[in-house]
């Protein structure tokens, strides 16, 4: 068994409106910053996963996303998995 560091990003699915992203972009406009465009607001989660392989760790993360961390109606995710 090995420990894998996982950094998970959950973000709005394409095609689903992102009022948080729009609100933050509006705040950036309010600062009169003209060369920045905010695209999306999402969530970040860092965790350790004990698994036999990177694939095994990824499977555990996929399962957790499916069961808890990601709302498939609205969100998508990506996970960076590295061996500690």
């Amino acid at each position, binding site marked *: 068994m090995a420990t894998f560091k996982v950094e998970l990003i959950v973000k709005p699915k394409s095609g*689903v*409106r*992102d*009022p*948080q992203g*729009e*609100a933050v972009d509006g705040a950036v406009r309010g600062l009169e910053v003209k060369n920045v465009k905010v695209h999306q607001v999402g*969530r970040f989660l860092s965790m350790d996963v004990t698994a036999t392989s990177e694939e095994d760790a990824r499977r555990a993360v996929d399962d957790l996303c499916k069961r*808890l*961390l990601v*709302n498939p*109606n*609205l969100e998508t995710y990506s996970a960076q998995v590295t061996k500690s």
Partner: protein
Amino acid sequence: MSGPSSSAPSGARPKAAVIVFPGTNGDRDMAESFERAGFTPVYVDSRETAPADCKIAGVPGGFSYGDYWRAGMLARYAPAMRALPELVAKGGLVIGICNGFQILVEAGMLPGALTYNNPPGFKHKWVTVEARETKVKSPWLTRVQRGAKLRWPMAHGEGNYYHPGGWDAIADNVPFVYDRNMNGSIGNTAALLDATGRVFGVMPHPDRASDPHIGSTDGSAIFESAYDAVAQGRV
């Protein structure tokens, strides 16, 4: 609207469970609404389950677990919530108001998702909802006339109802719509029933419109309908 049915034996008021999570703040509003309708409200810690003789359970508004990660997500796994599908399977009734609606959706007891208001921001104001005909006859709505326009307060930042199948996927189960766009919900959806009509989720607050001292009793019909269902042995 009239008061509780007179068919219940005096001194034997039925119980209604009000589930309380860390961060819940609408529990007393819900309990008082149940009480006014004829129930004896029972506060149930979310780490426990409702007493076996409760045929009615309510999931109140608030910010359960601080709305961490995703509103309602953490609350759905509490023991009190895990027991609700069985209550419904036995013929019991469940209501979720505001954060309670979010929790019922997260728990899969109602379809779709509730996400950030569009336009963004927390919105709190009195709103008008219109009652619609639904395919399923809900015990929560027997005292509500189709087409009735009711004044209830809303207070939420994540009440934008979304379903990947769009309005057509839910239209038959939407008993109330806002009279205008309040939060970006498809079809101005303000509430939703499950396929049995026994699970009722609503974003604005009928529980904060059940006391004449605070401006409206338009929400009382919901709790009185549930009382009728219990008193008449339909639950």
